[in-house]
């Protein structure tokens, strides 16, 4: 059974068709890359996967539930099982970074005392230990992106959807972030990473068995051996 599956999905923004007849299964423990030119619909596809957008055609299933059939509270609960790195990382600007990263724990009512070591380790891994008390507007572009990744994985979700998680960081850091994702994948998490960075994708293929999906002309294709 696939964790997330798109069945003949189509999506149009106000009448303009962007995706058409997209079908893909993310099976448990799989690692996917999603690539395609700027504006081809990578972010849109990821939003379809966690119910931020509902398909105009076809059906999206997550954990065996039709996303279009979930009520609002069920959608909220679903999001606790799916960690998302948004391309335009947004934070609560009045809370320090550590609280922002722990946000999914807070809203799901988890006991912060127990999760504390987890949080510390994670912030150390993404290189933000020194910035724990900074407010989000005081962060550099790359720091924000790393914080977004940390927030996405803090709940140890079943699925991780990362939209351009390394667009603003240097090569060394991007390798470090990739390693985190690979590690999580080894622990059984399903991972989907949207990226236009072919070098990153090539590097990843050495570490993990990853499939590369490419959006081109509204369709989703499996990328060939060139990657």
């Amino acid at each position: 059974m696939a964790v997330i599956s798109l069945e003949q999905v189509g999506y149009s923004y106000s009448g303009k068709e962007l995706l058409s007849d997209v079908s893909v299964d993310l099976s448990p423990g799989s690692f996917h890359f999603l690539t395609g030119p700027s504006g081809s619909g990578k972010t849109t596809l990821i939003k379809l996967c966690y119910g931020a957008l509902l398909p105009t055609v076809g059906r999206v299933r997550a954990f065996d539930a039709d996303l279009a059939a979930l009520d609002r509270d069920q959608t909220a609960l679903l999001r606790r099982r799916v960690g998302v790195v948004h391309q335009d990382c947004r934070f609560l600007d009045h809370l320090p970074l550590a609280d922002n990263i722990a946000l999914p724990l807070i809203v799901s009512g988890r006991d912060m005392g127990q999760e504390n070591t987890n949080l510390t380790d994670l912030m150390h891994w993404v290189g933000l230990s020194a910035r724990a008390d900074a407010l989000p507007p005081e962060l550099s572009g790359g720091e924000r992106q790393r914080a977004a990744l940390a927030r996405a994985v803090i709940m140890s979700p079943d699925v991780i959807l990362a939209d351009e998680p390394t667009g603003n960081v240097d090569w060394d850091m991007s390798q470090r972030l990739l390693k985190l994702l690979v590690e999580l994948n080894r622990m059984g998490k399903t991972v989907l990473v949207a990226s236009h960075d072919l070098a990153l994708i090539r590097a990843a293929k050495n570490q993990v068995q990853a499939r590369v999906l490419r959006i081109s002309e509204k369709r989703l294709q499996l990328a060939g051996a060139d990657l």
Partner: protein
Amino acid sequence: MKKGDIRELLAGDVQADRLVPPSGLTAHLTIFVSGAMAFLAVFALALSLASGRLADRWADELARSATLRISASADQRAVLTEAALAILEQTPGVASARAMTPEEQAALLAPWFGASLPLDSLPVPQLIEVVADGPGYDAEGLRLRLSAEIPGAVLDDHTRWREPLVRAAGSLRTLGVFSVLLIGCAMAAMITLAAHAGLAANAQVIEVLRLVGAQDRYIANAFERRFTLRALIGAAGGMALGVFGVALLPSAGDADGFLTGLGFQGAGWLVPLLVPLLGAGVAFAATRAAARRRLERLQ
């Protein structure tokens, strides 16, 4: 607002409370708007209650007193007065009727003739004070009956000079109620708008919370608590200042009997307590509605 809602609202949640930015201009706006409108509302209430009292008193004092004048020769006077009193006692709507003593009549005439007036030697008519009860009596019917049975009796119910005063008091009362309604509505509308503006300013907070898996109720509650509290604090402050201000107003003095002071009286001092409750209630409802509306825009 169901009972569970209130409990939830009061229970609070320290964690959730931190998720709403602590302050900012729109927060001050909510507090200030609630405060200012509560302050005005207290004054309008005071005006309304005072004008109500005034209208009641004027209507009472003026409508209830009439004078019956019996002009007759000295020998007939006592008989006719007795007869008139008997008739008045039978008239429905007359609470009491009393012949004035010579001293009272002399006092009434003093401005004209000086205190040393030899009243006995004058053909002064006998005056009877007529006090009506609640609904009053039928003045025309009474006049007819009196003119038939008691020659020289004239009923003066002061209608002519009472009327404008009663009308004025009535319009004061209308004005008071009207301004309370007006200020109440303006207060409600402004708190609603301030709450909406506050939520609009926090659009990003709501979006982020929804994206990380917070449920609608959780998000809405955090804002409801915050905004209800702000409105309550603002309105309570404004109310307190307003009551203080009303208490400081020069009082026209009660003993004068004609115009009452503008303040509250007795249990009336408790009425302003309704103002912060109204403010908080409006803020709660407005925040809930606005939060739900905003949330529904997000998938």
